[in-house]
């Protein structure tokens, strides 16, 4: 009995050690690179601004009160609207895209997925520069359209809101496709067959059987598109000519030109809260495992 007890104790001690070894690095990482910076940002958001940048005492709510300016509210709404549009378009294109990959012949699948991931091998900013060269008024697209006689004057494609939307969709589409692809892969085909046997039409099968089953993927894809799109300030800078200010630019400017760190920090906190709310919403519908 005593021997057995000893054995058990030893084993549990060993597992504790391995537990620390396994989780320890992650915990340290999270503490150092997530929690500490986050606390730092929260602290700054409650401090007073300093004329030369930086923040100091006394503790105030100025950062948060500064947000109440109508200007900033509008910029917030504008950013949410752009992100909403980006997510919707990504879903409309991403779903059929994922469907095609999931139903492609087995030997093609890895290749198609590789093609989807391929752009990530090049820095996103460089790819955006590529689009600028293609879309500018003397660029390849306009030159070709003019040579074909389809237009007389170059089209204004670049430096418009449409160009920003295009850039966002281009950059984020893979993030929508991948989770949807996973959920389509997991789809239980016997249910589809059963629905067909029971006489459901194609539309009915899709809306009643396929769509509900792939909902976690759709949700995961939407969140993975929506959240990063709120922070992609350089796309609106480069493809929109920095003409419209979005939440990302606004935060950047508070630190780098307005010298108002507390306001910048407060805006970041609000953005983090929005993200958390969305994640919470998501966990009610799907599980975090689908987020891949």
């Amino acid at each position, binding site marked *: 009995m005593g021997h057995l007890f000893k054995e058990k104790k030893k084993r549990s001690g060993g597992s504790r050690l391995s537990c620390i070894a396994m989780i320890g690095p992650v915990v340290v990482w999270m503490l150092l690179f997530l929690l500490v910076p986050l606390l730092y940002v929260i602290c700054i958001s409650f401090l007073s601004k300093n004329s030369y*940048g930086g923040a100091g005492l006394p503790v105030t709510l100025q950062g948060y009160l500064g947000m109440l300016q109508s200007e900033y509210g509008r910029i917030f709404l*504008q950013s949410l609207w752009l992100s909403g549009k980006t997510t919707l378009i990504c879903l409309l294109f991403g779903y059929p895209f994922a469907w095609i990959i999931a139903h492609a012949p087995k030997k093609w699948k890895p290749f198609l997925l590789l093609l989807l991931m391929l752009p990530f091998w090049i820095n996103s900013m460089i790819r955006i520069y590529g689009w600028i060269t293609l879309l500018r008024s003397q660029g390849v697209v306009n030159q070709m359209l003019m040579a074909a006689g389809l237009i007389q004057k170059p089209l204004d494609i670049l430096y418009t809101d449409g160009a920003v939307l295009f850039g966002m969709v281009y950059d984020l589409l893979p993030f929508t496709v991948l989770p949807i692809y996973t959920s389509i892969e997991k789809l239980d085909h016997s249910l589809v067959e059963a629905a067909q046997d029971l006489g459901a039409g194609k539309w009915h099968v899709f809306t009643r059987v396929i769509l509900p089953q792939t909902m976690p993927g759709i949700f995961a894809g939407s969140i993975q598109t929506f959240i990063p799109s709120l922070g992609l300030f350089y796309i609106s800078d480069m493809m929109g000519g*920095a003409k419209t200010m979005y939440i990302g630019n606004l935060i950047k400017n508070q630190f780098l030109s307005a010298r108002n760190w507390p306001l910048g920090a407060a805006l970041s906190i609000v953005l983090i809260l929005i993200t958390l709310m969305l994640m919470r919403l998501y966990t009610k519908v799907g599980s975090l495992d689908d987020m891949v």
Partner: protein
Amino acid sequence: MKKAVIMLLAGALCTAGLSGCGKKSNQETLYVYNWSEYMPQEVYDLFEEETGIRVVEKTFSSNEEMLAKLVAGGASQYDLIVASNYVLNAMKDQNLIQPIDVSRLENFEQISAFAKGRAFDPDNEYSVPYMSTITVIAYNEELCEQLGVEIQRLDDLLDPALENNIVAVDDCREIVDIALKAKGEDPDSTDEAVISGTIDWLSKLAPNIRLYDSDTAFSALATNEVAVGIVYNMDAAQAIQENEDINVWYTEEPCELSIDNFVLSSTSQHMDAAYQFIDFIHRPEIYKLCLDEFPAVCLNDGARELLDEEYFGNAGANIKEEALEQAHIIDDVGDAAEYYDAVFARMKN
């Protein structure tokens, strides 16, 4: 000249020898914090070849970025910083920089009288000028003729014929200052009402702006994307090199000028190397190398004599003397910076 350099080198060697005999095997390194695209690598290499001191350059793209990083604790990482005139006081107040002894610089006399002893540092106690940048109106002769546009006053920028046809620097001070000058106000105003009052002028300018770009504005001009540019003169010069239709207009109102200066970090560990480096840059033939690559406003009289037609023939590089004399030197506005940013944000939305 050569003698002086040898003397200086000998002096530097002596002090280095005195300060630490054991350290000789370690190569001395000078850490420079500089604007991006402002000093060619070739110059650093030549300096290392001559003195054996390695130069490590880190770059920033705005004074605010530089200040933010130094305030956040980065000051100890650099010896020499290239800072614009309007942040000098902020740096001094926060003890980020230390006094500089210009009598130790052989080539200080080469620096144009125009740039020395200006109001931001009357006795050059803290700063030694490097180069200067002026904001000009660049234009495409052919496109502007087609549009029937001519810009003599800043108000002409509001011409509806220029709709969606201007590239402008993405900087709240530069743009709001243009509005302040057009309205006859003080371009260094700290009065919130005056600054927010520029919104009516700015909202008329907004529809004419095709893009804001501080880093690669020259490419929009060079590729005929826009007819007019409110750009730094270096961008104008680069556009002119690539597209001969580009030229420069001067308005009745003064241009915005900023003078970029060498300052010594208060925690510098390599003072002698820093002095040596500043002196090296202001050697006319070395300064010319910098200008060849980055055609900003020349502030070195000796180098000016060495410059050729490529510089003088370029309206973006060779700025009219009166324009330089009359230019408004951008000053720090302290807490009012946020009003400038707010009105700029309103203009953009």
